[in-house]
């Protein structure tokens, strides 16, 4: 029995969340009194596997097959299922990436288990994990326990564990070649693309004023734009605003948009759904203006104003102008 961490790569490059998940795996394994193992799937992943073997792990599996070159849910599920059946781990951990969301629930189903997804912390009780995850878009937390025969499956939220706590070591790489049948891979993927070159680089901004559903109507965006102007800030938005076409997609902050870490992030009328928080919680100072005192955004905010943004924002513009002269 072991804790098996599935690392993610694409085109020979690591997904940034791979290392934080491995760091978490090391901690869980130590608390559960088990070794930690890692696996990376793809085509020609030997060099990546060797890099993973320089961390403190018992073994690294290079899941190697030419049908794993481009990601498909069918091939990845079959390949990782085969490895799991061979080594029978107690717990399988994934980074909660878009790719994992696409195949890990399918994989867990093959073992009559449910993936405990988007876990933010873990508590060990008598050597077995209790997973904490967000419910109701972050308004509540829930403790989830998994029962039934192992393996159990969990995916970990971006940034919930720290890659800089990863311990180094030295271990061996074992190449695992699953038997895959091209005719059973039903998805035919094409090359990834971007819609258009990004004209707006929010990551360079020192101050970002970001607007959410609380703005209610497209015509009201100008209220917040004026604040951004007064502060010399970039204007950004949560996903629903860009979905509605009120601001262009390139101004979206969150898991499907840009990840930013400005000096100051002002969240105006943003409730703080996790998809948004992962894109901005690295900001040095977070200011939240929201009418709902229980909005999750206040959990990450340094300064908060509970009030009607249509009163607070114009008042703020006036005060900023006073100070800036």
């Amino acid at each position: 029995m072991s804790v098996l961490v599935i690392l993610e790569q694409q085109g020979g490059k690591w997904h940034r969340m791979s290392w934080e998940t491995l760091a978490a795996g090391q901690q869980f394994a130590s608390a559960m009194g088990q070794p930690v193992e890692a696996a990376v799937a793809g085509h020609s992943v030997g060099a990546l596997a060797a890099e993973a073997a320089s961390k403190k792990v018992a073994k690294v599996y290079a899941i190697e097959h030419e049908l794993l070159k481009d990601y498909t849910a069918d091939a990845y599920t079959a390949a990782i299922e085969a490895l799991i059946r061979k080594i029978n781990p107690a717990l399988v951990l994934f980074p909660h990436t878009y790719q994992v969301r696409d195949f890990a629930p399918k994989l867990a189903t093959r073992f009559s288990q449910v993936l405990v997804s988007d876990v933010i912390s873990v508590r060990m009780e008598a050597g077995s994990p209790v997973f904490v995850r967000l419910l109701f878009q972050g308004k509540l937390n829930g403790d989830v326990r998994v029962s039934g025969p192992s393996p159990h499956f969990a995916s970990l939220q971006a940034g919930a564990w720290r890659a800089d706590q990863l311990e180094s070591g030295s271990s061996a790489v074992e190449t695992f070649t699953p038997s895959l049948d091209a005719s059973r891979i039903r998805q035919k993927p094409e090359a990834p693309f971007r819609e258009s070159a990004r004209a707006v680089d929010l990551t360079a901004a020192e101050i970002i004023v970001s607007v959410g559903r609380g703005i209610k109507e497209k015509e009201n965006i100008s209220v917040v734009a004026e604040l951004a102007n007064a502060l010399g800030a970039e204007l950004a938005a949560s996903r629903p605003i860009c979905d509605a076409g009120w601001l262009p997609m390139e101004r979206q902050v969150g898991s499907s948009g840009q990840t930013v870490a400005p000096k100051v992030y002002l969240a105006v009328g943003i409730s703080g759904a996790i998809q948004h928080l992962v894109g901005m919680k690295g900001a040095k100072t977070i200011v939240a203006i929201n009418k709902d005192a229980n909005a999750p955004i206040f959990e990450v905010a340094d300064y908060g104003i509970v009030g009607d943004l249509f009163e607070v924002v114009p008042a703020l513009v006036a005060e900023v102008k006073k100070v800036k002269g």
Partner: protein
Amino acid sequence: MKLIVAIKQVPIRDSQLRVDASGRWIQEADLSFEINEPDAYALEEALRLKEKHGGEVVALCAGPARAAQTIREALAKGADRAIHIEEENLDALDTLGVAKLLAGAVKPESPDLILTGLQSDDLGYGQTGVVLAELLGIPHSTIIMQVKVLKSKIRVKRELEDGWFQHIEMPLPAVLTIQSGINKLRYATLMGIKKAKTKEIKRLTLAELGAAAAATATIEKVYLPQKSKQTQILEGDAKAAAAKLVEKLKFEVRVL
């Protein structure tokens, strides 16, 4: 083509949530409910595909009696008929248990395409569609922003991270989980609301579907999150709070 849309009823977005006496779920008695937002986009996409290619849209919903309201709204928007897996205690099941119920209801319908939202706004596991596809033995793709039907297959645009996308083709039947914002939602018309009253809602029970697998993933406790930061709430009316914030930005954060 025959389209099934799996929808879920969840508390409305601005609900004030309170933990119930058991400590394992929320007090539902005084809440209002609505369609899970990503499911509304899945329904809209199904209606558009039907308008383009002909066929039928069936709304499928597992939930207690109150979910009938959400089902009627789907019918009013244009779904042709509905299946309601009516059960008061669905929370005794986990994702796999619910997906088994849905699979049991879907199988005899033999649809060409099944759509659902990419995740629910309440539990947020984000996997019912994927598990459903596995149980039905058909292909799937997730976080979909565009659907094109080509004879016996589909070509979809899947959202990746950081603003990347990818096209994927797969044979039908298939399951797609739909991302919010894929289309513009329609409102129900008066005529639609009137017509909905005569549309068929087939009710199925757990006993009829014969699936009662014990949950392996159970929620033991729900509670308010602990703050990761100490938030200074700036009090006073709008003007006073704004003045305090500007002072903080100038002297503590030093960006002004």
